[in-house]
């Protein structure tokens, strides 16, 4: 299925959010996920199913002033 991930249209192989984070090669502990403008906390990633057309943002905290 196709999703919008961090502003880009990509093909997503994973069925659930946890899978997507791992598919992208990210360390789950460092990521904040937003699905269709709602934050999904990490304990819900295993139970969050990804649907075609979902807008997903994977974010993290970086240095800033």
């Amino acid at each position: 299925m196709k999703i919008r991930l961090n502003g880009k249209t990509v093909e997503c192989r994973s069925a659930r959010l946890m899978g997507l984070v791992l598919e992208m090669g990210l360390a789950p502990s460092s990521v904040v996920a937003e699905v269709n403008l709602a934050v999904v906390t990490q304990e819900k990633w295993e139970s969050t199913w990804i649907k075609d057309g979902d807008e997903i943002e994977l974010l993290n905290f970086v240095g800033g002033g």
Partner: protein
Amino acid sequence: MAKNENDALVLGEKSFTNRLFTGTGKFASRSLISPMLEASGSQMITVALRRVDMGSKEQNILTCIPDTVTLLPNTSGARTAKEAVRIARISREAGCGNFIKIEVITDMQYLLPDNRETLKATEVLAKEGFVVLPYMMPDITVARQLHDAGAAAVMPLGSPIGTNLGLEMKSMIKRIIEISSLPVVVDAGIGRPSQAAQAMEMGADAVLVNTAIATSADPVAAGKAFAMAVAAGRMAYLADMADEQHFAEASSPLTGFLRN
């Protein structure tokens, strides 16, 4: 600001005895952040939220910050109140606490804040229980409006972000300090400890310094130097220094020996 026993600055539910706030941007190595915090004693530090770099195993910057230090996520990157509100909500949901530095910038040359959008975001977030610290263009009317909107402090800029120009906005900041019933935190542009001390001598309640510390050759020493300057400036303010005068006034008696 009411004086209290240990002269702490109270924001939201938290009390800060160290009046130097710092930032995590621009460090050559993130391993310098924790020793800088320790050397300076800074009790609050800013962080920013961004899209992840896909495939990067780099840990989130929060792992570099001790639990004892209050996180101040900023809304940098936001160009509208709506975007700032979204970042604030994400930051809180992500476990960063309820402090938020509102930073809404549309002017990409001087990076000056958009006071109108900043005020709108403050209204929304204060109602949602955030401790809102808005970064603002020094403007007395807006400072009053931010107070009415529920801000916890106002953060006028000293000079544009990252310029090290110090208190270019000195006269307006002074007036804001005079009229504001909220704490005043001078944010941005402070490039030298002497400039931080000057802000504190004027009666600022705290200063926020990132670039000058992070881009110095020794951020740990620079952090400590800023903390000392901030403490000295605060002490001088509380000591209520005498006014400047045009004519000289002798410190030693001029009569009583060679002259009568």
